[in-house]
């Protein structure tokens, strides 16, 4: 209960101001495509050079928490996820918005983010030492199976049929092999210098989601130039809260999966939302409603990606091994103040560390209050005529893409992928499995290569990948996921 004694430092006027500013800025930055949580935190770190350690960390923590939630705003309102973590949110969130339930969708998003985030931070506070040990046991073989588990859900997400989903996923996997592979020390498929650094995941995300949306908006605007994007819908805050908390199963699945994925270093928090979404759908009584505006989809995805935040700091603070790309950037923010991860962080620097963790807890409250306030007023965005909206998205897409790596090649890749996706979506192919392929490809490949080298110099390849309790559990989960998909598609066929 040591953390309770360190709340006084959080509630100073200066720190509350930082929390408020950080949360607000994080929500806005998170909603901009291209400014992923990792980018936002990385850009903030130089500002903390001149701050007190605790103040700097409070600002970074508030940014981290709120950018993850902010990415859902654009996912719901304009179908452009702010970061890869919010892809699953767009699947049902944007459909709800199209049905005139945007305010409701945003409320679910923030309430679930809050619940998941709170659970994640509490896990960080109470279970750090045992979980840090667990985190280290995930080596190349375990991470490989996690990636394979992710691949088993590719076919069922966001496309009109399983075969089309798998094809899109396969194309994504192929795209992920382009460029330099540091593991092999070789370049692959670099037939043009624009492909030198491969297809960056956020570049693909912007291209595949934002550009087709731009075309669609322009096309619709030509038909009816008075058209607004969609109606915001009535907002009944208390009803939403009550309904949200009653969706206990989706909240639990989301928070649990988010927590587990957050702890595992290298799994990439980006897949937490998608895995939680998939599991919630599979265990739902009405799996067919998903993808058509089912609140459970938003609840599971958003609780998962915010539950990931706290646990991703577990291996970072204890072992100096970040659980997510954003946590990796936070490491710099710790080091600049001489805070070295390890036991010292909780003893010698205990006051700063606990103030930081407590501020994350408080930041959850700021996020939900500001978020709910924004969702009441997000109608302002929805009243913008479609063709203005399209122009704004296009500018932000180009600007956001360039800013990731200051690379003009990225802008070209983004536009090409976007044009491709616009036509592909007409044939029922979805962008979500494609992005998932790009995310999972390197995780599967790199860990397989590492595991191959380790296995071959040990007991052999096969036994390395199939021994140990964690490997066996993950393999059975993979098989279970495939068997269940076959079973449920058979069942729905006989029902027809």
């Amino acid at each position: 209960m040591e953390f309770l004694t360190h709340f006084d430092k959080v509630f100073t006027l200066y720190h509350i101001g930082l929390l408020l500013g950080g949360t607000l800025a994080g929500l806005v930055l998170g909603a901009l495509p291209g400014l992923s949580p990792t980018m936002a935190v990385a850009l903030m770190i130089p500002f903390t050079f001149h701050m007190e350690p605790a103040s700097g960390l409070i600002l970074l923590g508030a940014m981290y928490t709120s950018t993850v939630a902010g990415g859902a705003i654009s996912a719901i309102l304009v179908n452009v996820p702010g970061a890869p973590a919010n892809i699953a949110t767009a699947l049902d969130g944007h459909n709800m918005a199209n049905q005139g339930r945007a305010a409701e969708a945003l409320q679910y998003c923030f309430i679930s983010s809050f619940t998941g985030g709170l659970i994640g931070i509490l896990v960080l506070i109470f279970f750090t030492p045992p979980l840090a040990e667990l985190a280290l046991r995930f080596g190349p073989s375990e991470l490989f199976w996690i990636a394979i588990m992710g691949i088993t859900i590719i076919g069922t997400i966001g496309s009109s049929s399983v075969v089309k989903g798998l094809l899109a996923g396969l194309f994504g996997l192929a795209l992920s092999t382009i460029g330099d592979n540091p593991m092999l020390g070789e370049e692959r498929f670099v037939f043009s210098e624009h492909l030198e650094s491969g297809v960056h995941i956020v570049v693909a995300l912007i291209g595949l989601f934002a550009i087709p949306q731009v075309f669609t908006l322009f096309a619709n605007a030509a038909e009816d130039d008075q058209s607004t994007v969609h109606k915001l819908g009535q907002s009944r805050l208390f009803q939403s809260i009550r309904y949200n908390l009653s969706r206990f199963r989706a909240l639990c699945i989301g928070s649990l999966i988010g927590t587990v994925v957050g702890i595992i270093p290298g799994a990439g928090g980006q897949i937490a939302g998608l895995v939680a979404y998939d599991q919630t759908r599979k265990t739902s009584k009405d799996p067919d409603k998903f993808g058509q505006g089912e609140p459970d989809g938003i609840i599971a995805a958003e609780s998962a990606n915010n539950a990931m935040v706290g646990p991703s700091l577990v291996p970072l603070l204890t072992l100096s091994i970040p659980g997510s790309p954003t946590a990796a950037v936070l490491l710099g923010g710790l080091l600049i103040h001489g805070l070295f991860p390890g036991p010292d962080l909780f003893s010698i620097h205990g006051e700063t560390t606990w103030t930081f963790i407590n501020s994350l807890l408080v930041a959850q409250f700021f996020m939900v209050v500001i978020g709910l306030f924004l969702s009441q007023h997000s109608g302002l965005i929805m009243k913008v005529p479609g063709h203005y909206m399209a122009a704004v998205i296009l500018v932000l897409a180009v600007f956001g893409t360039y800013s990731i790596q200051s690379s003009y090649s990225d802008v070209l890749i983004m536009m090409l992928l976007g044009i491709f996706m616009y036509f592909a979506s007409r044939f029922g192919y979805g962008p979500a499995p494609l992005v998932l392929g790009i995310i999972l490809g390197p995780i599967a490949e790199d860990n397989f290569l590492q595991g191959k080298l380790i296995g071959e110099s040990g007991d052999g390849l096969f036994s390395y990948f199939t021994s140990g309790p964690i490997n066996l559990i993950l393999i059975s989960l993979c098989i279970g996921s495939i068997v269940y998909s076959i079973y449920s598609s058979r069942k729905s066929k006989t029902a027809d």
Partner: protein
Amino acid sequence: MKSNPIPSLTRLLATGLVAAISALTMATASYADGYPDRPIGVMVAYSPGGATDFQARVATLASAKLDKEEQPVSIGQPIYVTNKPGAGGRKGWNWFAEKAPTDGYMLAAYNVPHFIAQSIVFDTKYNIGNLEPVGNWGADPAVLIVGKDSPFNTAQDLVEFAKGNPGKLTVSGAGKFVGHHIAFLQLAKASATDMQYVPGKGGVGALKLVKGGQVKAGFNNLSDSARAGDDIKILAVADLERHEFLPDVPTFRELGIDVDNSSVNFRGLMVPAGTDQAIIDFLAEKVPVMFGDNKTLGKMKQTNSPVRIMNRDEVIAMWQERQAALTELLATLKDE
């Protein structure tokens, strides 16, 4: 002898040429006099938040500092960092060598041995011939580490094991053709053993493999390893002298294993070839002063970033030395 018209024409031409050259040098001299009159950029070929990006930002903090008489202490203009990551740094450095302006307003951070090794192995647009160093701020040697529960306690233990079990000793490092990989190649060569290199996902990924016991040993950054405390055992430093952060850890040479300092990760600033000599001279004089600022050094120490300030001439010598050593080392690798 009468003067014929040809020599006078030559003389005329020569005079003209001299005038032109002096006009040109005067122009550039006056150009360099005003330099720098606006903020200067530093291109970092890695992502924001990484060690190189982070250290570059700290190392250049003092660029606009003024003394008591309001005179600039070093460069006299603020420095901003811009990131062009991709392909292990090749994307950014290719851009820098080929397309960066040569007016002195765009500098870049270099990582040795990375960029030199890449220019030998890959078809890059850069090499030590078309880049001009202006100062070095840091040097992070590679160290040989094992997990805390490892049966190995010295580097000799490891070498003995590798001799008895060819191909069985797994050693992690940050990737291919980076300092850790160079150190590994040197260790395998010096001990005449067959070991297995396992490239990790960056330095952090490689450290994780060691801490989690997935590999038997690893090469990693001295700075990160020194911070890891009791989680790992540090067996040897791949440098010529012991390091102040780890006074008890011997160098490889002390242990009778011939691994020199070729793998030390040097970081500093450079400009593209074609930059005016007056600007290079200006930066070569001021940049080491900027690195030596007390507050900067304090921040560096606080973050466990090993500092080694070197001037332009020292860096040029170091680059050439590395070029020769790496060409030889990597040539054997290519034959495989």
